């Protein structure tokens, strides 16, 4: 039953993807700035003939609706076109960059949840204690700090002053790592390459912290407030009246309930996280989708922007689907 519903939901993403493709296609065309102009650098030495040839080569001389149908037709066959700038298939470029982005995002989410949930629970249990006030203050800071600023500060402290952590890239030069999945942490474990693992981790930490800071701050506050709410409930007194230890009361009976609103918030924040990706990847020179997207937008590299945004959309929809499925496990009152 659940499986059928999940398949239904996956199929329902198809119209969403078509909608995304059309919107991105149109908005890119309506954005001021022309790819051919940018390529030629508005140079007086380029003849009108050459520009026209280039336009024809990229199919840009056709009416927009023809271009759109052409694009959708090819996309349905898995061909997202060639990048104007790099002259390589968009699919290939996305495939190269996707693991870097997914790895960064996952590590960011995992780190922030591992920090945020215990602190949120502790703050609620010891409400108004020194630790509670301190963590709420820090999380307030975390919510209000923009990622690009936090990234630069972290680079300044840990890379420039202390020299502990590298500021750019995914791995040190000269560390040979056989690529199996494209996820460097996983690859280095699979190939038993400890040096590569260390190098990857040290590259990963700063951007992951930068990316996860806002999420951690928000989750801490949500966990704390929902724990405070849950701890007042009768079933908590009931659990105590059964003779259960306080630790189990908090972790088993209270946290399970407090996670319900938390999962909702995490699901919503995934969209924000993907947006933050572009900034963090640019600041840390992270060779992922976000950086490609930023470059492609500046170059008016239409096919590449379209391809990358499509993948963002897929990741976003899938992440929300996972949250919805998770939700049915956490909250028995809800089914998909």
């Amino acid at each position, binding site marked *: 039953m659940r499986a059928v519903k999940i398949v239904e939901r996956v199929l329902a993403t198809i119209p969403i993807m078509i909608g995304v493709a059309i919107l991105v296609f149109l908005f890119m065309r309506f954005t001021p700035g022309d790819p051919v102009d940018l390529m030629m650098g508005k140079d007086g030495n380029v003849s009108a003939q050459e520009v026209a040839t280039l336009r024809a080569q990229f199919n840009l001389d056709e009416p927009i609706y023809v271009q759109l149908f052409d694009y959708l037709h090819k996309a349905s066959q898995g061909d997202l076109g060639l990048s104007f700038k790099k002259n390589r298939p968009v699919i290939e470029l996305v495939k190269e960059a996707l693991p870097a982005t997914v790895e960064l995002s996952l590590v960011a989410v995992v780190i922030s949840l591992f920090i945020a949930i215990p602190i949120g629970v502790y703050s609620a249990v010891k409400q108004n204690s020194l630790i509670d006030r301190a963590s709420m203050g820090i999380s307030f800071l975390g919510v209000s700090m923009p990622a690009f600023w936090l990234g630069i500060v972290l680079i300044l402290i840990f890379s420039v002053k202390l020299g502990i952590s590298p500021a750019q890239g995914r791995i040190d030069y000269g560390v040979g790592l056989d690529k199996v999945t494209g996820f460097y942490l996983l690859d280095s474990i699979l190939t038993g390459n400890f040096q590569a693992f260390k190098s990857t981790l040290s590259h990963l930490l700063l951007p992951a912290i930068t990316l996860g800071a806002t999420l951690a701050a928000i989750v801490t506050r949500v966990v704390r407030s929902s724990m405070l709410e849950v701890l007042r*409930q*009768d*079933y908590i*007194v*009931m*659990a*105590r*009246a*059964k*003779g*259960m*230890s306080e630790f189990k009361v908090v972790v088993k*009976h209270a946290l*399970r*309930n407090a996670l*319900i609103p938390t999962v909702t918030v995490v699901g919503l924040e995934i969209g924000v996280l993907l947006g933050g990706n572009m900034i963090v990847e640019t600041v840390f020179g992270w060779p992922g989708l976000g950086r490609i997207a930023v470059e492609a937008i500046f170059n008016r590299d239409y096919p590449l922007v379209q391809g990358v945004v499509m993948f963002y959309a897929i990741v976003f929809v899938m992440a929300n689907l996972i949250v919805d499925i998770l939700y049915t496990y*956490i*909250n*028995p*009152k809800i089914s998909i």
Partner: protein
Amino acid sequence: MLQVKDLTMVYETDRGKVKAVNGVNFSIGHGEVLGLVGESGCGKSATLLTLLGLVPYPGKITSGEILFNGEDLRKKSPTEMRNIRGKDIAMIFQDPMTALNPVFKVGEQIRETLRIHGLMQEQKGSWWSRRKKQNHNERERVMELMKEVGIPSPDERFFEYPHQFSGGMQQRVVIAIALACSAQLLLADEPTTALDVTIQAQILELLNKINRERETAIIMVTHNLGMAAEFCQKIAVMYAGEIVEQGPTDAVLENPKHPYTQGLLQSIPRISERKQRIEPIPGSVPDLATLDETCAFYPRCGKRTKACLLKKYNLEDLGEGHSAKCALYS
């Protein structure tokens, strides 16, 4: 079995000390049913939680003894108290909708009590087989309990969640949890208030059966005097954290001594006397933070005299176990 002596529990608030439970004395023997009656907010539920050592924050027990089978529960360590809670003294809550955890299966919530107190543990065999046997025993026991409290087809309902149960069935689950370890004493905090009248009768009948068959002592908090009359052998009337009158049910209800008890009885509508006027007690329960040592009922009392304000009165024995705390009888 349980003797409470001079128990006082105080909430330390910004506005000063609030005596939620004020010098309470009562006792209950094996198989007895004691009714704790009074208006809302007069410390009945707080008394029950205090007995279990679950004083709600920011409350503190400041004096008194809670003797359970001769041992003072106040002197027990937190771990020892945990072993008593749920096993020797169990509690039934007012509203079953909120007393059951919405995210766990009903059967699991009953099983949990057995697991906490290690009741179905196996001694023989490897760790794995012991574990399996224990799981099996626990499940069997839970099914038995569910059958005993009148939940039909327990093998299916074991796996359902609380929201799939009706209010009456949920209260049966709460009672099954309380019965799981064969507690000697049940603390029932208005167990029928949140239920329909017909379901109320069923739940009362169930509690009655448990009391008869298992000889479980029950302390029943209620504001329903009719229910108390039918169900309890002894009644203690509470007002503003104090017991103002107690004694055998018949004596207290047929010959009430304290003006508050008399007022309570007059405010019950009766079917047999159609034209009788209901006479409510004027005013409401006072703010406990502003009370002094004299009678808390004085402002609302129809029989007040100058003597009331002179000193603090104690429960006076009026014979046959009946006693009242009032200037009229001192």
